[in-house]
């Protein structure tokens, strides 16, 4: 395989993280109808983090917590309301589409909608190369063939259309398309949740191998905690658009600090059928991002909330290997 990724760019020093997100915020305006007022939904609220080169940041949270919006804002598919994304010290919003494509690429959840049904596999994989506009056709073909082989597809499969491949094969195509430009960052938005369980492990292993080989940095978004525990070096827990806890993966799964993280970990189903569905004490209602509670945004569902939680907005508190936003952590009186 090529070792082009070992090339050191001028901006790339030991101190520069591969990706840095600063105070990213994205809101949506929802029309209130004829008489109602417009409402503002805060999908991503002041999110900041950085990931070192070669790291994997897992982002977990319930449906509707803003995980996918975060992915789209980082990719600049949705412009951020405020804040910025830096890849190797360069602001993504200041780059043109070709330069941005060379730095950051997505892998989407559903391989049935992420591949154009009317194009051949080899053309789909070639798309990022062709979009660069200055790569000779022969080189495009060579790199596509190399990439298809690398993800475990044959040249013959390159001639087919997406409908003629299985879900796992389609996701391999999506991976090949994302990596053919040798990007620095890959945003994986639930890359295995649409796949059969038997195929998930293959795709995860492929992603891990490619990361080591190409020295990639992943942002790995998932609601599947087992998958995140397997792949991530660090984990960020999102709740209603904010990262409420962030820690090294081992530490987070061993000793979660935020009550929400604890509830999430407790909600994982055990393989023992007799134990039934665990009761995590979060209640039945899902949070509404258009109506974020005052004080700590988690307090209405928090099993250990105190009266002050409804008033005071928690600030991030440094923990041993990360940070968490919970009032009860301050002073370390309560674990």
């Amino acid at each position, binding site marked *: 395989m090529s070792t082009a990724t070992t090339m050191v760019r001028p901006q790339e020093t030991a101190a520069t993280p591969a990706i840095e997100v600063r105070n990213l915020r994205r809101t949506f305006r929802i029309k209130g109808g004829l008489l109602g007022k417009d409402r503002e939904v805060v999908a991503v609220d002041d999110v900041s983090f950085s990931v070192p080169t070669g790291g994997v940041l897992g982002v977990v949270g319930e449906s509707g917590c803003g995980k996918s919006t975060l992915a*789209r804002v980082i*990719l600049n598919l949705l412009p951020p309301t405020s804040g910025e994304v830096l890849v190797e010290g360069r602001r993504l919003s200041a780059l043109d589409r070709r330069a941005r494509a060379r730095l950051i*690429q997505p892998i*989407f959840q559903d391989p049935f909608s992420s591949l*154009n049904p009317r194009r051949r596999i080899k053309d789909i994989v070639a798309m990022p190369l062709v979009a660069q506009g200055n790569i000779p056709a022969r080189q495009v073909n060579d790199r596509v063939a190399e990439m298809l082989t690398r993800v475990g597809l044959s040249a013959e499969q390159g001639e087919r259309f*997406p409908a003629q491949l299985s879900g796992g094969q389609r996701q391999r195509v999506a991976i090949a398309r994302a990596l053919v430009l040798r990007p620095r960052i890959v945003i994986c938005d639930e890359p295995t949740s649409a796949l059969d369980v038997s195929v998930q492990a293959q795709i995860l292993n492929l992603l891990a191998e490619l990361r080591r080989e190409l020295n990639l940095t992943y942002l790995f978004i998932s609601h599947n905690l087992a998958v995140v525990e397997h792949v991530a070096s660090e984990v960020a827990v999102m709740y209603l658009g904010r990262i409420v806890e962030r820690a090294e993966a081992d530490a987070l799964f061993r000793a979660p600090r935020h009550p929400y993280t604890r509830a999430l970990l407790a909600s994982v189903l055990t393989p023992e059928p007799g134990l039934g569905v665990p009761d995590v004490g979060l209640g039945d209602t899902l949070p509404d991002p258009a109506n974020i509670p005052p004080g700590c945004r988690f307090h209405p569902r928090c099993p250990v909330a105190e009266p002050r939680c409804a008033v005071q907005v928690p600030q991030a508190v440094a923990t041993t290997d990360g940070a968490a936003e919970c009032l009860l952590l301050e002073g370390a009186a309560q674990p």
Partner: protein
Amino acid sequence: MSGAVVMPARRRVAWGKRAGLVIGGVIVGAVLLVAILAPWITPHDPFVQNLDNRLSVPFWMEGAKPGHLLGTDGLGRDYLSRLIYGARISMLIGLLTVVTSGLIGTTLGVLGGFFGGKVDDAVLFAITCRLAIPVVLVALAVVGLLGSSLTLVILVLGLLLWDRFAVVARSTTMQVRNLDYVSAAWAAGLSTPAILLKEILPNIASHLAVVATLEMALAILLEAALSFLGLGVPPPLPSWGLMIAEGKDYMFFSPWVIFIPGVALFILVFGINLLGDGLRDLLGAGDTR
């Protein structure tokens, strides 16, 4: 037990769909072929009059003359030859109108559906304005000002019949725009025109093909109506609508002069619609991802 009852019924439905497609395709293909080959297959010159041989009857009636299979019209012109040349005009108008209006409507619809916001507002406004324009009145005004000609009919219809293309292109583009493969194309660094042409257009083309058949049938019928009113193709060009108009003076004693072009018109429009229905079923089934 019940399977034995269900299976043949299911097969019959599938055959029915394909039968429509095949019959429609054969009709349209045959008319197109006849239209293209007109100069070589017509038995007589469609413009040559013979006043000694007026209103000769077609072959199935008593007293038919050999050499005039469908008889002659009120000026003694061979009716079969005029019918064949009429197919030329109908197909020409149908195809050119669909190309013109398809280009206009698809462009507007895709732009509106893709960009949304102000662009979409403008496209919607244009569609609303177009729907408020009565085609026949515009044709009347234009012909009154500029005189009737084949080019004018094609222009008037082509510039007015794009609304359905625009509506369908707009709504299908809106659906496709939000699919992940379009996002992936953005992230891959593709330019906006490339995304529109390579990612969006091929995936809405099947819907547009169905609209094209409907519009073609509509254009052919409208041309016939305009020609009947004297606003379409000018005589002596043999348009089917004009043939009906010219025949209406003789309809009580020689009904075939109206009957023959009427049936031709019906069969062609019927065939185009069958083709459209078949196309929709075929492509719709292929769309399942």
